């Protein structure tokens, strides 16, 4: 990656899924690489089970903390339909790292709305899609709450920041008792992204 260009990443999901930690680890990695970093996150009302996004930008000089639509280099989504909701942030050749996990909104359960079959739409909308069962992978590792780190691992594979920085960022951002499971989840994500170009 050229350090000239500012890299923009959008992370999407449902309030409470762990976007904040995913964003923190990514930002920390960029700081460890000596880059300027700006991030933005959602607080308050939207956190109560609503759609949420976090934005991370890093490079030699960063002005706006917000990512303009159509310019994100990567979109990471912890929930399948949320990836579609925020698809327009991604630039046409950008990378989408999406979890197969579905969180059914109340508007579907108790209202008339339908939860669409996401895969065909995701494949249609994203030219580069990594569609992973991050929750199942994390469950296999014994910690379903580390699904976010599986996705971060897959993302890391495609951002050319050095692996040592990611590992160091994990150590700095994750609480000691959860570090092992998060590190394993991160490495699992890395290897899952191996076969993907």
């Amino acid at each position, binding site marked *: 990656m050229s350090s000239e260009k500012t890299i923009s990443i959008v992370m999407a999901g449902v309030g409470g899924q762990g976007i904040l930690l995913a964003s923190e680890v990514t*930002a920390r990695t960029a700081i460890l690489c000596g880059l300027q970093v700006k991030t933005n996150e*959602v607080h308050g009302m939207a956190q109560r089970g609503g759609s949420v996004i976090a934005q991370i930008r890093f490079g030699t000089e960063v002005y706006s903390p917000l990512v303009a639509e159509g310019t994100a280099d990567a979109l990471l989504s912890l929930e399948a339909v949320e990836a579609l909701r925020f698809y327009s942030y991604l630039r046409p050749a950008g990378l989408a790292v999406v979890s197969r996990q579905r969180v059914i909104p109340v508007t579907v*359960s108790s209202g008339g709305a339908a939860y669409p079959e996401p895969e065909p739409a995701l494949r249609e909308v994203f030219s580069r899609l990594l569609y992973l069962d991050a929750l199942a992978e994390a469950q296999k590792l014994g910690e379903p709450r580390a699904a976010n780190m599986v996705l971060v691992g897959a993302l890391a594979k495609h951002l050319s920041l050095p692996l040592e920085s990611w590992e160091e960022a994990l150590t700095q951002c994750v609480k000691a008792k959860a570090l092992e499971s998060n590190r394993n989840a991160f490495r699992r994500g890395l290897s899952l992204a191996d076969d993907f170009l």
Partner: protein
Amino acid sequence: MSAILLSGNEAIARGGYEGGVTAAFGYPGTPSTEILESLVQHKDEVYCEWSPNEKVALEAAAGASLAGARVLVTMKHVGLNVAADPLLTLAYIGVEGGLILCVADDPGQHSSQTEQDTRQYARLAKVPVLEPSDSQEAKDFMVAGMEISEKYRTPVIVRTTTRVSHSRSLVEFRDRVKSDREIAFQKDPSRHCPLPVWGRRMRVELEQRQHQMAEVAAASPLNRIELRDRKLGIITSSIAYQYVREVFPEASVLKLGWAYPFPDALIRSFADQVENLLVVEELDPFLEEHVKSLGFACHGKNIVPACGELSAAKLLEVRARLEGRDPERTPARYAVETLPARPPVFCPGCPHRGIFYGLTKFDVLVTGDIGCYSLAVFPPLNRTDVILCMGGGISMAHGLEKSGEKRKVVGVVGDSTFFHSGITGLLDIVYNRGKATIIVVDNRTTAMTGHQDHPGTGRTLMGETTREASIEAIGKACGVQRIRTVNPYNLKEVHTALSEELAADEPSLIISRAPCPLKEHHDVGPKMRIDSDKCKRCRACLKLGCPAIENSDGVIRINSLMCAGCGTCAEVCRFGAIEQIVE
């Protein structure tokens, strides 16, 4: 020391610390809340408190300042409506120790009922306003603001916005600079008592101070001219500066960090050096109208949106309009509007669910209030009819009842909101022989803003235990005769209480009490499951609007990762199909 990634709010707290603040007061409100939550890490050196409301916070801060302490007050923009009374008079009296009022605006209404431009209050109160555009400035402007406050004996507003407060960027720290002033109130009624005899003099001094500060602001390093291509000069402030640099990298910029009192000399100098002027600011045309009043033609709200927040994307459209082009629009590759909406909802296990579900069984009007329970307005509960402001749920219920409205009226407020400004409304109901039923949904915390303590929790911001204010005792002291407490997880109890109190021909107070499970960090009870053999798909449980109860493919099931075990769903199931998971 190397730079540290801080949110704007954490940086404001750090700036307060470095600037020598020794006392801080505030009321929680997104996007301002994290300032005091961060500053309290220095509680050995800085007294920090959550006040019952913003007016009290500013009044307490005024007292501390007049004794010589450096103080910080924090609130969101609507909080300043509540604190406007002390602000306008404090501007007359002036301060002794520096006083910074940090107000967080919410362009785009991410978590607010209104969009308001706090700079208008600065002009109304005739006090300076500083506007940081990133975390480093948020910290530095606090220190600079403290100097301005003490030098001109004026309260200073530091205006932040959601994107400044909740964005993170790198910040370099400095050492704390403490005031060498002795803390001792100096008696001088002619300075501290704005009775008309002295207030008229204060009024004149206030005006003189404004003129002085306008001259100083014009030479202040908080304001700067960045000369590049002189064809276009952009006047901007706050987060909009960042978008301007992104979208107009070649343009000359007048960046105003200290925008009011307007630095006229600097604005004139900039306007004279560039060919065309554009003002880019969020919300009101505050700078634009002033630039025009100085006799300079400029673009502004004719091409920059006044409603909602700005962004680099919106400025790209502004740039296109400025250059006479149609804004580029990328055709949609997916119809996002067809996706199921995901509005914020009551969390699994939320105690508010039971009381609002109970209200669905009665033909009453419900006046709601500000807090998590505002979400009762959404389907499937649909059980709030009107929301106005903090405390308005109680007073509006009274007015609706007095209007001759035939339906019974129920006012619902949260515990923190009750202490904030619900008590006077309750007094009004009793004093003026009203009959409304008031429900305080007491979840033992200020939940929406992230679980802050309040006078009813028995704990202070600094972590000390303290006396708990009793909502029952306050109701009694107001003169309410019918007061009862219900457990919102017991729907039968809720129904009985509502039936009896709604039938009463006098005011009544129901306290629906159960702690927020998110604050407690543990489930309410054992997780639940649905026995699909017993489930008749009657959908009664879905009327609770619990996100843990999922129904997407004809089968209704409970997501055990989300279930908090409140058991409310089992209470509404007539077929006994919902049961506890036995581990």
